[in-house]
């Protein structure tokens, strides 16, 4: 009945751990990888629904991407003559080449999703306030880093998909006033996607970005510990603290194994795509950016590029200043702040699901602002006007939630956040599945 003894011990020693726990704690403190963990964790923080394991999965995927990426480097050649044949060889003759490439490809895409979900979780549980505000900003930086990783990696196979997605993606950059063209030229090493671009992207992808990733992640984890661990609601009674071994480590191991198994099975079933060799004279129709940029590309179909970019920039800026914007710590750790906050979130999501497709359809089929307001410059009729209308709509949603629901500031922000995120998902889905040749709206089924 040793487990019974252990339990009694645990009840008896709330603050002073029993001897066998001490040795487990020392094991954590003395191991480099385990050292990222605290030696003991409050029991409520161990509930799966506290984190959904999303940060852990993202970390695992990052490690996996480094391991598979380093292997790929031994078979890859960053030259426009040899890159495509090298990747082709991986797909056909190199043992396990296709599997390795598949794992790297799908892990990169999955990481995009888990990092965003991780951010949504942290937002929902209010983990960005107080001393955690620095780590929120670091986390946002990691999200941008993962985007950059995926963007630079996308070019490397040098097939049609790669070439035109990067051409269109950097084409977007050129619309940034004053510096856009210079930034694009600098990144591409010239006016168009060619050998310099491939070499630059490769150096970024396998050298600079991984270094930033490793330092960034280490700092991110270290801050989680410094800031008192995972956000949990204030506890009425004193919380039990459980040792990291076995309570946290077994949970992490379980999630890691399930993720790995799922990913490997998926990569075996669905190989990474590889289209025809890049051809600078013949773009495919339609030419789409990588899927995680299709939300922004969809915005571009409806407003002047400057307006679409401003909107995306405002979103990012809003996220960056969130810790200053919402400083109300009274509901810390409670998902969606409160019952009212939860309702605000649902309303925001429902509005986005109805309004976004409706607006896309109306703008595509009936409304033609530039012709309607003909003498006015399109920069205003197709740029400033839609931008102000969108921002006005967002302000309206916030005000509506404050008024109709009597929501507090931080509860209304839940509604706003949920609207923006769901709208982004809807726009991305429209871009992925509902845009056909000439980017016309199509019904995919």
């Amino acid at each position, binding site marked *: 009945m040793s487990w019974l003894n252990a339990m009694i011990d645990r009840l008896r020693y709330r603050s002073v751990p029993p001897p066998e726990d001490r040795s487990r704690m020392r094991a954590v403190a003395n191991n480099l990888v385990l050292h990222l963990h605290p030696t003991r964790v409050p029991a409520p923080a161990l509930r799966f629904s506290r984190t959904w394991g999303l940060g852990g999965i993202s970390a695992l995927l990052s490690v996996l991407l480094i391991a598979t990426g380093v292997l790929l480097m031994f078979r890859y050649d960053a030259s426009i003559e040899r890159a495509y044949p090298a990747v082709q060889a991986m797909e056909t003759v190199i043992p396990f080449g296709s599997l390795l490439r598949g794992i790297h490809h799908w892990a990169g895409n999955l990481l995009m999703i888990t990092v965003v979900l991780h951010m949504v979780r942290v937002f929902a549980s209010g983990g960005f306030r107080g001393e955690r505000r620095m780590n929120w900003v670091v986390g946002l930086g990691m999200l941008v880093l993962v985007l950059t990783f995926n963007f630079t990696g996308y070019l490397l196979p040098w097939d049609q998909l790669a070439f035109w997605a990067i051409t269109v993606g950097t084409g977007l950059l050129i619309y940034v006033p004053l510096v856009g063209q210079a930034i694009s*030229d*600098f990144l591409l090493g010239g*006016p*168009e996607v060619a050998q310099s671009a491939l070499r630059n992207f490769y150096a970024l992808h396998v050298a600079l970005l991984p270094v930033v990733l490793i330092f960034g992640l280490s700092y991110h984890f270290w801050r989680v510990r410094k800031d008192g661990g995972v956000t949990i609601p204030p506890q009425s009674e004193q919380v039990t603290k459980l040792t990291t071994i076995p309570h946290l480590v077994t949970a992490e191991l379980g999630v890691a194994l399930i993720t790995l198994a799922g990913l490997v099975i998926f990569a075996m079933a669905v190989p990474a795509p590889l289209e025809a060799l890049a051809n*600078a004279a013949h773009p495919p*129709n339609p*030419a789409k950016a990588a899927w995680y940029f299709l939300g922004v590309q969809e915005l571009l179909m409806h407003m002047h*590029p400057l307006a679409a970019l401003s909107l995306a920039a405002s979103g990012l800026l809003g996220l960056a200043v969130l810790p200053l914007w919402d400083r109300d710590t009274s509901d810390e750790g409670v998902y969606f702040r409160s019952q009212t906050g939860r309702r605000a979130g649902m309303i925001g999501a429902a509005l986005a699901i109805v309004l976004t497709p409706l607006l896309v359809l109306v703008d595509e089929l009936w409304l033609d602002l530039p012709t309607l307001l003909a003498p006015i410059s399109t920069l205003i009729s197709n740029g400033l006007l839609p931008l102000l209308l969108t921002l006005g709509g967002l302000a309206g949603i916030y005000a509506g939630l404050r008024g109709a629901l009597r929501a507090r500031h931080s509860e209304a922000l839940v509604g706003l956040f949920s609207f923006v995120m769901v709208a982004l998902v809807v726009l991305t889905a429209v871009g992925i599945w509902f845009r056909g040749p000439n980017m016309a709206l199509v019904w995919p089924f």
Partner: protein
Amino acid sequence: MAKNTPQPKKDAPAGTTVSRRDFLALGAGALGLVGLLQTGGMALQFLAPRRVDGEFGGVVSAGPAESFPPGSVTEFPDGRFFLARAADGGFLAVSRRCTHLGCAVSWHAADEQFACPCHGSHFDLIGDVQNPPAPRALDTYPITVRDGALLVDTAQAQQRDSFAPEQLVYV
């Protein structure tokens, strides 16, 4: 007060409050900043894009003017441009790069227009937009005439909102 808080020293000239220690710290900081800017500048120059003569970005020789009938469009794939000759005989070197997001347009002789397959923009022979989302006419490259032959400088594309007659070059 902490022991090592710098105090104004006797040797500081009357009327200033900067101690020697502060001055040195400030100087070291400024030097560090200059050094940082310098390394940053060096890195930027090291990484800056470079153009190679003879390739795209250099001067492309298009040949004698007589070989292009009025109302024709000829593609120069290596120069990434089309040489368009308007009905009145004027020449225009039209960039292949779509002004929307940079895909390559192609010339459809039957419809007398440039079409971009990516998002459906159309342009006429002189590069004017006929169908959005392209926001402005196709870029052009400067043409010079030497001994009746046309030279197209592809170093820098010229942006324009729409076509104007003075953009045409006559031999």
